[in-house]
């Protein structure tokens, strides 16, 4: 029997607010253990939470970017469970009335993946195992998190991977989160089930916890789906369970089954009054929302005529797009700028982290100036790339690297001289061309390039050469 893949994903995203969700401590990653905490986020007796308005704003922005309805009345609840990294023995979260609900995320295919809800909550601390002991670092405790719960609409591991990547991108675009999966600022729990093809009933699901990269998530899902299909094929049942994925073996193993699931004893958080949002406030955030990645990519292809590959590559990095669009505003050509950025600049930046930061030693204006020199034929592409390389290492404007010689170009009279020589010294190529071999003419272009040290405008040279040959 054939089985269909059914998957829904719960994603935890750490918000990029400067301070924690219920106190004024810094949210910066790392730091000496237990230096970024206070009576509130270490759960000292008597301390009370104060809701960070920025965290609410970020969560609502995330919801708007995912086409959610915003609950004008939402509330916090306590999720009670005991673990050493949770200093109050409850997590302040949202249960009955989350901030956002009923949205969707669009994949490149145009398919919409439903978003069930987005709620705001606090992160826990971290256990550190060292020197044979276990220590607790509460620096992360109280960092604002949103949990984004998708509907079980993902029909293949490939779609699931794209969903995670798109989600990551949307969060980065909107400035809601940096979504660094390695640092744990984005964590995915994937729920998977298999059902006989054509059936409407959902199978029993398992949940794989804490996927820390889209690629591992895809691999884990493939393995887990295969495991479930095998069980069903043998006539066995899939048991509802929480799974762990081992990146080294590529296999999933059972962490705990439904029988030992926690009872979180949710109840309304008495220390935080319900959150009431004004319609105007939400509308204001909606208007302030930036262009989202998929829309941007489509615009780059359709309006700016970038290739699909270039558009996809550049839209992965919001800061690169910002830089790119600033250069366009200065008047530089879109295709040349995009190619220089995704080619020379990305190659120089090398790592994902650097491409995300996109911190360069020159401004978008200076970059535009270089691109426009090339656009105007003052320098050719080769010189442009070489100059950009120098700017990337040394910084500053293009003109500091371009000599008078580079900039002078080749004037038309001079170029005609060179072209006549090219025709004169390559009779065989000319004959071949006249005999119908179109490609033969490229030998003449090579001559012109060599003779002008690459400075000649080849398109102009082509016109001149064809004119000379025609005269013959």
């Amino acid at each position, binding site marked *: 029997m054939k089985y269909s893949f059914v998957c829904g994903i719960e994603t935890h995203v750490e918000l990029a607010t400067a301070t924690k969700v219920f106190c004024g401590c810094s949210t910066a990653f790392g730091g000496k253990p237990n230096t970024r905490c206070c009576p509130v986020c270490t759960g000292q007796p*008597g301390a009370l939470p104060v809701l960070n308005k920025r965290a609410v704003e970020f969560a609502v922005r995330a919801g708007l970017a995912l086409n959610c309805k915003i609950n004008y009345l939402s509330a916090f609840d306590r999720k009670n469970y005991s673990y050493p990294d949770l200093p109050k023995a409850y997590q302040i979260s949202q249960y009955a009335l989350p901030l956002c609900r009923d949205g969707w995320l669009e994949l490149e295919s145009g398919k919409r993946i439903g978003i069930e809800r987005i709620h705001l909550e606090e992160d826990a601390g971290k256990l550190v195992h060292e020197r044979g002991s276990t220590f607790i670092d509460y620096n992360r405790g109280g960092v604002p998190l949103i949990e984004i719960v998708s509907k079980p609409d993902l029909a293949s591991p490939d779609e699931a991977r794209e969903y995670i990547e798109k989600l990551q991108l949307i969060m980065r675009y909107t400035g809601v989160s940096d979504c660094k999966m390695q640092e744990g600022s984005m964590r995915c729990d994937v729920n998977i089930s298999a059902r006989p093809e054509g059936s409407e009933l959902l199978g029993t699901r398992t949940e794989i916890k804490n996927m820390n990269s889209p690629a591992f998530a895809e691999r884990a899902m493939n393995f887990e789906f295969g495991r479930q299909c095998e069980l069903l094929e043998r006539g066995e049942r899939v048991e509802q369970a929480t799974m762990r994925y081992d990146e080294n073996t590529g296999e999933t193993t059972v962490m705990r089954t439904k029988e030992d699931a926690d009872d979180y004893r949710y109840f309304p958080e008495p220390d935080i009054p319900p959150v009431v949002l004004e319609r105007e406030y939400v509308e204001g955030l909606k208007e302030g929302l930036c262009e989202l990645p998929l829309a941007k990519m489509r615009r780059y292809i359709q309006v700016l005529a970038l290739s699909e590959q270039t558009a996809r590559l550049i839209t992965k990095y919001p800061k690169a797009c910002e830089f790119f669009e600033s250069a366009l505003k200065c008047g530089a050509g879109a295709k040349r700028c995009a190619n220089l950025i995704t080619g020379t600049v990305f190659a120089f930046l090398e790592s994902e982290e650097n491409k995300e930061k996109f911190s360069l030693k020159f401004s978008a204006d200076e970059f535009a100036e270089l691109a426009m020199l090339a656009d105007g034929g003052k320098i050719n592409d080769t010189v442009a790339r070489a100059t950009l390389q120098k700017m990337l290492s040394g910084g500053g404007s293009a003109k500091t690297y371009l000599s008078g010689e580079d900039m002078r170009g080749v004037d038309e009279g001079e170029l005609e001289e060179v072209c006549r020589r090219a025709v004169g010294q390559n009779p065989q190529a000319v004959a071949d061309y006249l005999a119908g071999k179109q490609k033969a003419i490229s030998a003449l272009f090579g001559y012109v390039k060599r003779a002008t040290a690459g400075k000649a405008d080849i398109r102009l040279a082509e016109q001149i050469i064809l004119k000379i040959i025609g005269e013959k």
Partner: protein
Amino acid sequence: MRDTIFELSRALRTKKISSVELCELYLKAIERENPKLNAYVHVFYDSARRDAERADRLIKEGKGGLLTGIPVAVKDNICTEGELTTCCSAILKGYKPPYSATVWERLRAQGAVMLGKTNMDEFAMGSSSESSVYGAPKNPIDATRVTGGSSGGSAAAVCARLAPYALGSDTGGSVRQPAAFCGTVGFKPTYGEVSRYGLIAYASSLDQIGPLTSSVKDAAAVFSAIRGKDERDMTSFDGEKERELDPDVKGLKIGIAEQFFEGLEGGVKACVESAAKRYESAGAELIKVSLPSLGYTLPVYYIIACAEASSNLGRYDGIRYGFRAENYSSVEDMIIKTRTLGFGKEVQRRIMLGTYVLSSGYFDAYYKKACALRERIKSEFSQIFQKCDVLLTPSSPITAFPAGLERLNPAEAYLADIYTVSANAAGLPAISVPCGSDGGLPVGLQIMGERFSDYKVLSAAYFAQVDGICPDYGVKGGVEL
């Protein structure tokens, strides 16, 4: 009834006595009397003297206010930076908070002098203060009787003149009931009027800090000093504008709800009814009203309070602060042993009860139903306050009961709070003032009002003080000026 705070403040300002001298008088009296009464569980000799020196400087510089230089006793569940705050529980043994509660910050800013921490039921769970890990305080009026609770130490300290005034906390009557049992004034403000930041939570939606004093005027002064919106407590508010107390009750509509008098017997009934008549003869109008849900208030209180407590007390696991059990085999084992040894029986009972009512499968039948009833109680109160300004009731159906009763029969002792819990359930301001004696033991008169009518309630109670309804129980041994 003496306005102790005002008298002392005058003495300080006219230089009859310095704050340091006053502080020494109280510390000596505590040293002498406290071994008998057990009202204080921690006495802060050093910091009290430092506070007093600071107050004397403020007075000298002409920066003193009403409370500057006046000593205060603080309940052991209100955090004070660097000074023991243990909730009278073994689990918080040795705990010195890294921060101060807003109420103490506000009093300190006005030059208050903290003498020490007062005895209470462990985590404020009880009606007699007998569940304290330090042993029960004794009622200064009759040492064989309880002080009431949970702010029993605060009531005893004020009654015995071991403190001019004290702070308590009131979750189901924990300020008013011990005040009634010890013949002092106890005021529970509107929920949210006084910041809970730094009050170690028992039941967050019910807890409220309030003063225990020797007069209504003193209570109003302390309330004015600690009230108001606090950025660190999202449930706090700026309520009604502060105003002078007005003892004129002419035209005041006083509600009398029959349910508060059903089955009430003997001296308590007589005292409260006679007090009501005094109000009437002064021109107040007594109006019959009804609170049909009064019988539900105790079960509603116990379900909601225990549910919240089970969550609030989850943090005491021996990991970060307080007591940690020895000889454990794993983290889980350590937590279990710590909580088993660190919490007393009553606290364990309420944690279990609260965990049960929140468990899946029982949530709707208990917690959800209790919340619905709580709403009904609130709406019955708003109907009452459409007809009258304040409600007059007994503070408790009984007077201070003999020591040991609560342990023998907890369900019976729960009844001591039957008239006080409704104000917590509805978040209303309520005060208990002494209104007579029954067999030599004080009887308390309770006056309740609608939310944010704190000064109206205080004014109505001030009549009892001015009219002389409140007797002097004549306790000796404390500080006399």
